[in-house]
């Protein structure tokens, strides 16, 4: 885990270093106004931006080792405070979108598999095709238009309450569900074709029992990985959806930080992302074994 984090932060630091425009410029040259070169230089010196790359990076690493992520260039507040403000909102949105996805996609995926090549299956396939190809910003605006402006059921700008959570969750869940339904369908179909299903049927085990207790359990394995990866991605914040719905999460925070060239905040965000992905993969691996002990045997045989 440590080498991964090290690599990720080094690459990110390097990219920010070579990208045109720095924090001093961004904060001092507002769109269309200018300041003198001396003022710029003074600000750079103050932020330590005039030092060589390696010095800046190791200075940052040294502070990190002491648990200090530094301070935001834009406000001077500690980075961890900025992050921890947006984090709960992102976790809430990610959790609710993921829950919605699971609740909808598993039953629908199962249905599509059982009714393979029937009208129901075809409708679900067409639906998920549309869901996958619809960009989230379009869906977000359509949802706002229909539910906020026309039906007046939900606020256009929801805030962070329950009412404000619904539309962004649905927007995020729509794309995820579309993908999940197809994955669940494929996984279930694969299991249905296996020998043990035939055996169970031959022994007269009820079809429902086979489906729910054998097939679904086995089919869940690849789905769990998918859930893990998707959840990790959601936890990184979803900039587009967060900006349209003005949801104060990590994605929006990161976009503001990037546009203000607020390096310490961007670095803190990247650290968080990397940590999340490593952690999520670990959890997914562990849950494999819990869900299916065969994984362990396979490992030991190899």
């Amino acid at each position, binding site marked *: 885990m440590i080498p991964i984090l090290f690599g990720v932060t080094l690459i990110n630091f390097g990219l920010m270093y070579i990208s*045109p*425009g720095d924090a001093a*410029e961004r*904060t*001092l*040259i*507002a*769109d*269309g*106004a*200018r*300041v*003198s*070169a*001396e*003022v710029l230089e*003074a*600000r750079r010196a103050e932020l330590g931006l005039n030092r060589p790359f390696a010095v800046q990076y190791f200075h940052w690493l040294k502070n990190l080792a002491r648990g200090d992520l530094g301070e*935001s260039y*834009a*406000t*001077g*507040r500690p980075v961890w405070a*900025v992050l921890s*403000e947006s984090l709960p909102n992102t976790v809430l949105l990610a959790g609710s979108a993921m829950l919605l996805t699971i609740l909808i996609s598993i039953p629908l995926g199962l249905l599509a598999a059982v009714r393979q090549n029937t009208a129901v299956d075809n409708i679900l396939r067409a639906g998920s095709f549309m869901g996958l190809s619809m960009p989230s*910003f379009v869906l*977000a*605006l359509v949802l*706002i*238009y229909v539910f*906020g*402006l026309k039906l*007046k059921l939900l*606020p*256009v*700008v929801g805030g962070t309450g329950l009412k404000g959570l619904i539309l962004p969750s649905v927007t995020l869940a729509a794309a995820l569900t579309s993908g999940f339904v197809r994955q669940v369908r494929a996984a279930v179909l694969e299991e249905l074709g296996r020998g043990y299903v035939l055996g169970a049927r031959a022994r007269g085990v009820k079809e429902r029992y086979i489906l729910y207790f054998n097939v679904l359990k086995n089919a869940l394995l690849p789905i769990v990985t998918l859930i893990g990866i998707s959840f990790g991605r959601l936890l990184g914040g979803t900039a587009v959806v967060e*900006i*349209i*719905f*003005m949801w*104060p999460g990590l994605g*929006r*925070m990161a976009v*503001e930080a990037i546009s*203000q060239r607020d390096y310490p905040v961007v670095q803190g965000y990247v650290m968080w992302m990397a940590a999340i992905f490593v952690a999520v993969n670990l959890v997914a691996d562990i849950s494999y074994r819990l869900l299916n002990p065969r994984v362990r045997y396979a490992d030991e045989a190899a």
Partner: protein
Amino acid sequence: MKKFAFLTLVLILMMSLPAWADKELKFASTVPTPSIDPANNYAGWFTVRYGLGETLLKFDEAMRPVPWLAKAWSLIDENTWKFELNDGVTFHSGRPMTAGAVKESLERLMKINKRAAQELAIVEITAQGQAVIFRTAQPNPTLPNYLCEPYSSIIDVEAAADDENISGTGPYKIQSFKSNDAAMVIKNETYWNGQPKLDRVTIRPIRDGGAMTMALKAGEVDAAEGLPYVNHNVFANDPAYKISSVPTSRVFMIYYNTAKPFTADQAVRQAIGMSIDKEAYSRILLNGAGAPAAGPFPAFLPYGGDKVQARSFDPEGAAGLLEAAGYIDGNGDGLREKDGRKLSLKLCTYAKRVELPVISEALQGQLRDLGVELAVEVVESIDDVLAAGDFDLAAYSYITTPTGDPWSFLNMISATDGLANFGRFSEAKVDALLKEMRSEFAPEKRVETALAVQREILARDGYSFVAHLNMALVMKSTVSGLVAHPSDYYHINVETDISE
């Protein structure tokens, strides 16, 4: 029966209670701010926009400094200014705004904000009764202008003064604020200059133009700043809404690189200038949200508008000019050549101001008709490209008078050592005029010199100025006292109100 009447009365009273007990305006802006501390970079814009802070002087409709927290000012000698403060002004903290408090506030500003320190160039502040005396290092005729710049907002430095909480003198005081997020301000009951009409104002950033339009349409927002121009049509013909629009000093302009072979030739620059159909660009490309520009300054300024003349739109005249200068299409490919070299130019611009690429492409088409090839490049970091001089033409957008004075912009683009003189424009006469203007105190003389410099620039075809952009506030028709100002600094004020 009597009892019934009494009950009815009570009921009616109760029902009408919320209407007058709680008057709220919901304001939306496309730009979030990380801070409301006026000393933090450009956060002062929001200190003033939210009605929290005020400056010693403010700009009038023609961007001239007029009294605000200070009631009068005078120049004692060329390095000494005296500002007399209004009596009875208190901060939100309850502390009276004395000359000493003003001194502390501005000293804090100059310590934190390097840009302010350089622009104000004050070396010493003395408090003298209800007057403050400023001493400058060298003559600074634009000091009153810079005291209008929102960073100069006077705040109580003994009270909380950080990114999320300040104690100013404005009609509203901060209730809650989160960095890059929503703010709520509430009525300042002891405001010095009248009684604020609203109990509170909530200000929230809505980044997405589409979402903002729908929020305004759904009635969740009462007034909005920064609404995309293409969405103005939704509100322009609806009697439930009104638009307050005003020209600003934001200009779209063309840089010519005089260090490049073709653009070094004034005939080429002049021909390009004559090919820009500013009228059509403003009407069609800017969707009526802009006005054709002659020079860098808009018409409401004493040194702007048609007080200077640019080349008029004349494609045939442009063709004749190039013909006479020896640019002729010898090989019949539709493009002119001179000395065996094709008249092909590169224009660089950037996408952050969405209008610029559109204007550039329109120019590309018009130059094609003239027999000039123009390659348009939309670059990521335009300032690096400009500094490197790697362009023939560049389309750029500036706010030309953020502080109501023409010197700083003219000096920046046309002095030989100007900060943004990327096209290497250089005229000894212009340099001399700018130098003289720098320490000229008489306003009418400054106007005269500013006009002379502009005429010189335009006569040499050093730049082409295409259009000035309007700024607009879109609001429900029940909102009053909210008027777009050319400086874009003043939004919520003591008169701002909303009726039921």
